[in-house]
């Protein structure tokens, strides 16, 4: 689904709903801007005044710790006022619809909504509904997309491994239920990855996934050969309806990333995981805490990347050529 909701007439990002259809340059602009925000997080006063006076509402209809917290920190470091709303404490439990919730919050002059919802397409629905001065960032919708996670993954890869064109990627685990995997695939193919493999049991690989430009594989050891970057996924037991894996022990034996399986990849391969991790299920603790793991740097970079996305989305819409006298 090509989404023109996201870009305005001048190609500027207005909402971030999905990676699909975004130009390569837009992705690079986000990664480059994030580099500058890294240094803001390393200094004494970790705050810049860009979003002073703006209101950001984190609207989470589904639970989250990492994503919500990093969005909150990102907004605060940009000097915005950040309000967190978790659905369990809000009026939707009293029967209010999503769009009514949005209307009410918008009446309080909210400038940016960061939305997570269990339904695929929820962020799109809201983006179509709000007036032009209100912006939406998708923080995960159903199985569909999690664009900010994919962008922080791309940032991590670029920092640790360099250019995408020279790298081979393996996305491993529960591809079927994973919005992270879909966003990662679109980001990697847009940025020109040499090869993207998706590895998991047949029951957790979506049919016709090849159409996204990736190579499916059901054997982890064989699939890891020549791989530079291993992107593990969480086994989403809460979304599973039916017997998709024989048993957790067997899943770990076949698809759990252990040190000896990791040795099938290139010796300098990095291991990523979007969190939360199921240790001893999709990843062994020795690997998660080992020297090739970049799982904690991912979290740190997530703040800078989300700051960059917020800053680019909320920036003015005047032509970039407008002259700025010194």
């Amino acid at each position: 689904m090509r989404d023109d909701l996201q870009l305005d007439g001048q190609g500027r990002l207005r909402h971030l709903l999905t990676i699909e259809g975004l130009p390569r340059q837009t992705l690079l602009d986000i990664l480059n801007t994030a580099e500058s925000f890294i240094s803001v997080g390393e200094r004494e006063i970790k705050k810049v005044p860009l979003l002073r006076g703006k209101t950001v509402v984190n609207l989470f209809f589904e639970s989250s710790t990492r994503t919500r917290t990093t969005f909150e920190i990102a907004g605060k470091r940009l000097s915005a006022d950040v309000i967190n709303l978790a659905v369990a404490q809000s009026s939707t439990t009293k029967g209010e619809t999503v769009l009514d919730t949005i209307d009410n919050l918008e009446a309080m002059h909210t400038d940016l909504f960061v939305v997570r919802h269990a339904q695929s397409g929820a962020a799109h629905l809201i983006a179509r509904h709000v007036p032009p001065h209100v912006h939406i960032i998708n923080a995960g919708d159903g199985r569909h997309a999690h664009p900010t996670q994919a962008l922080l993954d791309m940032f991590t890869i670029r920092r640790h491994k360099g250019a995408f064109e020279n790298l081979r990627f393996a996305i491993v685990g529960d591809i079927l239920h994973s919005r992270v995997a879909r966003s990662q695939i679109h980001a990697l193919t847009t940025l020109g990855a040499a090869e993207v493999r998706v590895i998991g049991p047949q029951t957790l690989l979506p049919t016709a996934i090849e159409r996204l430009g990736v190579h499916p594989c059901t054997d982890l050891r064989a699939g890891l050969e020549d791989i530079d970057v291993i992107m593990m996924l969480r086994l989403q037991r809460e979304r599973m309806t039916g017997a998709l894996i024989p048993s957790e022990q067997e899943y770990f034996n076949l698809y759990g990333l252990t040190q000896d399986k990791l040795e099938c990849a290139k010796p300098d391969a990095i291991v990523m995981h979007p969190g939360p991790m199921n240790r001893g299920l999709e990843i062994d603790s020795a690997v998660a805490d080992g020297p090739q793991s970049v799982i904690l740097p991912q979290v740190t970079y997530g703040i800078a990347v989300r700051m960059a996305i917020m800053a680019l989305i909320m920036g003015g819409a005047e032509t970039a050529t407008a002259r700025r006298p010194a």
Partner: protein
Amino acid sequence: MPQTTDVVDIDATIAYMADELRPFLPKNPLMIGIHTGGVWVAERLHKLLELTEPLGTLDISFYRDDFTRVGVNPTVKTSQLPVNIEDRHVILVDDVLQTGRTIRAGLNEIFDYGRPASVVLAVLLNRDGRELPIEAAIVGHHLRLKKNQHIKLFGPDPLKLEIQEAHT
């Protein structure tokens, strides 16, 4: 049409600025250039004055007051203040002083790193068009330009000034 101007001898002007800055040397000042043109000028001053501590650089993109109108420039550079500026005497260097808004933003950013003992401003060119009460202590060259004229420093090597006229 942009035109290169030779009204200003850049090398001689920077040498003059260095001489004007010498009286500050006993205070062991810390030099900071503002991206991008200010860094080029500061690099030359830093060398002429034989300062031993590394040059600091500022990109004030995150502190601009026109963000809500024009947004963030994705080519924003990283600010680097390699030395702690707490209680230090700072020489802030920029290429052109016009409205004063860049310097206002630069001062705000500096104070987010710490509290300097003092800040003096040194600019290659001082032109008309001030919108804030900010003046430079060291001015390489004063220039009067028409309202629709814009002057820009190109570099880093060689440094070259270009005057552009906006057609309104």
